[in-house]
């Protein structure tokens, strides 16, 4: 621990005076052409300085905003004191994926959104600090693991290795149960590996977090498509409990003419090619991707921002976000929108695609015809409904389109599992407090229950389910 860190403690300065410490990051004009992570992370000095800003509230509101109930002031205190191992141990008590959450959680509407300092000043950078603790442990920490309960002899199958599945697995392993995770793709991590780009969440970090679960004693079986390779009923014969965290996993298309043209992708495909298959390193890696010069991404969520920013890194001269409402309604995190704008993503707002244009001889996409919109009355979601302006058609020349308007419920597993109740959209019906489904010994959580949401909400659902599974395994249904 350095001298300058100790000093402020002695003097007990007015902590509010320290401004929120910014994370150094790659310059926009540099990073828009590479896939390396945008922020570099805190140095220990910056982290400790930021940690000092925390008031260590007796009744911390930040904690209430955390779906996995991390003891936030406690881990920050460890950082402040320079005990970085203490910080990671505190995080691990509630979160098996701190390096991931520190990067991709929408802290502004969770912990940081409730931070008392945030009322007058900028809130404590909880996310940055969480990230720091995890990164520091990975880079410099001793080979430590959190304590594990005595083996219970109970076996749990977790289907899907995304954020909710990994959370359930991490929790139950620590409670002494034997956990096997089944993953359909050839690498674990779910959306963390195929969806979120390298520049936002390096894949080495995801691999490390999955490896942490394996070091804890969890088993991960990749390339196993539950529903095809093995059914849920077959798993139930071998395991005491089954958790379904398979994600939404069904791309939604615009259903406008011309979606078959070469160069039209679902965001799932575009990002899977780039992230999981590393198509941005083609031909070193074998999977190709269309490196469009003029790319339009349809939609305004975080996945759309990821797609538009990926397009820039694949060499696009123009990367458009085409969104039917106005900037205020963009569902993406402000930080993601900001990063996209900084990098030069162009926003065509109040614009809705009507049809794709293509060359029927080559099958290639050449453009999109759009209609301008204006905002009308609020709709069911409370956002003002976009209304097309008649006669406002215009065309944009594009060679690549990425459709990022959400995901639906993939029926592969649910259709092959008798006894599960599904809602009208095909999502699994599960008790919101416990994750229990209508099928005995089967729990579910994450996007396959709620529809497409965020990493941390899926983790929160996993936490509730793991508590319920543990209760069942120790006390009965």
């Amino acid at each position, binding site marked *: 621990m350095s001298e300058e860190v100790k000093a402020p403690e002695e003097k007990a300065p007015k902590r509010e005076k320290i401004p929120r410490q910014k994370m150094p990051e790659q310059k926009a004009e540099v990073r828009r052409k590479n896939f390396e992570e945008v922020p570099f992370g805190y140095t220990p000095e910056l982290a400790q300085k930021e940690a000092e800003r925390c008031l260590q509230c007796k009744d911390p509101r930040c904690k209430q905003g955390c779906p996995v109930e991390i003891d936030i002031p406690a881990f920050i205190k460890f950082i402040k004191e320079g005990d970085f191992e203490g910080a990671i141990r505190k995080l691990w008590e509630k979160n098996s994926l701190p390096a991931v959450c520190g990067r991709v959680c929408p802290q502004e509407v969770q912990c940081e959104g409730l931070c008392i300092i945030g009322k007058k000043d900028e809130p404590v950078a909880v996310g940055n600090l969480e990230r720091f603790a995890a990164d520091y442990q990975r880079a410099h920490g001793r080979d430590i693991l959190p304590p594990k309960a005595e083996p219970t002899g109970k076996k749990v199958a977790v289907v899907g290795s995304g954020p909710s599945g990994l959370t359930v697995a991490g929790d139950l392993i620590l409670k002494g149960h034997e956990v096997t995770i089944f993953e*359909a793709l050839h690498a674990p991590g779910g959306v963390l590996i195929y969806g979120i780009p390298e520049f936002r969440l390096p894949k080495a970090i995801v691999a490390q977090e999955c490896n942490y679960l394996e070091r804890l004693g969890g088993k991960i079986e990749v390339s196993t498509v539950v529903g095809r*390779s093995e059914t849920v009923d077959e798993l139930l014969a071998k395991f005491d409990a089954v958790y379904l965290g398979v994600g939404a996993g*069904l791309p939604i*298309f615009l259903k406008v003419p011309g*979606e078959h*043209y070469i160069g039209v992708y679902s965001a799932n495909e575009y990002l899977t090619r780039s992230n999981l298959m590393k198509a941005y390193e083609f*031909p070193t890696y074998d*999977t190709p991707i269309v490196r469009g010069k003029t790319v339009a991404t349809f939609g305004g969520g975080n996945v759309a921002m990821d797609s538009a920013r990926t397009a820039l890194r694949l060499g696009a001269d123009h990367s458009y976000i085409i969104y039917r409402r106005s900037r205020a309604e963009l569902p993406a995190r402000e930080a993601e929108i900001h990063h996209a704008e900084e990098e030069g993503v162009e926003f065509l707002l109040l614009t809705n695609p009507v049809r794709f244009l293509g060359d029927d001889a080559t099958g290639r996409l050449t453009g999109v015809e759009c209609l301008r919109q204006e905002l009308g009355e609020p709709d069911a979601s409370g956002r003002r409904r976009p209304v097309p302006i008649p006669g406002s058609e215009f065309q944009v020349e594009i060679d690549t389109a990425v459709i990022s308007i959400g995901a639906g419920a993939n029926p592969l597993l649910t259709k092959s599992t008798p006894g599960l109740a599904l809602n009208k959209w095909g999502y699994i019906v599960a008790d919101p407090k416990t994750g229990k489904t209508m099928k005995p010994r089967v729990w579910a959580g994450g996007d396959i229950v709620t529809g497409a949401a965020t990493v941390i909400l899926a983790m929160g659902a996993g936490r509730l389910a793991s508590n319920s599974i543990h209760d069942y395994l120790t006390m009965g249904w």
Partner: protein
Amino acid sequence: MFEIVERQEMAQGTVVSNWVKAPKIAAKAKPGQFVILRANEKGERIPLTMAGTDPGKGLINIIYQVVGKSTALFATLKVGDGYLDVIGPLGQPTHLEKVGKVVCVGGGTGVAVLHPITRGLKEIGNHVFAVIGARTKDLLILEDQMRAASHELLVCTDDGSYGHHGFVTDMLKKVLTENKDVGLAVCIGPVPMMKFCCKMTKEFGVKTLVSLNPIMVDGTGMCGCCRVKAGGQMKFACVDGPEFDGHEVDFEELTLRLRSYLELEKVSYDLFKKETHPEGCACECCS
């Protein structure tokens, strides 16, 4: 690793058959289903419909034509080597039913996919006519197996070097003309072949199944890459197929989408050849 226990070259080395150790898949797979294979860490995920299984030995059979980098890479794998990933069984199995008389038509490596379906249709009591074809005699595969799997086998070659001189559609027409009671046709092969077969069976009013091979990534309905138009609807071949009612399929669209990465595939294949073959190599793929 999924070990290759048997390897055989066919059609003058342009087609390779592998028996691969994959006990879990072998135990579950049904005719018409496919697997996704990846040779190594940097490899593409390649879907191949299984040509057969041996559940007792825990083996699956894949037969592929060398057409680009990935299949050329597969072809370098020897007995004792293996695939890094084999995922499956994926897709819907063929709905095998007794309809009386059926005709099974296969072209090129499509015959490999057709074979287990043909056998299955015969086993449940259908009278099976089979028609197989290739460009030339030396490229014909699985003739003996198809003869055993059917009641009558008709062979065609485009150049007349063996069997009937002409396309499989000629023989399909003959079978349909002579047997007005054929209740089902199964046609598997190159897209143009399937398209023309379907055109013909439609004239005769015979229900027709085709097995489609669009480009895929995950194979579980997650990415939508393999979307095809069938009956005016967008379908995913990986979960809704790979078999479809041939009279509903938009083959033009399928043909276009199969060309998505033509240039990039060439870049990749050329690089591979440069890396694996010495300069001035006179082999077929380099010349």
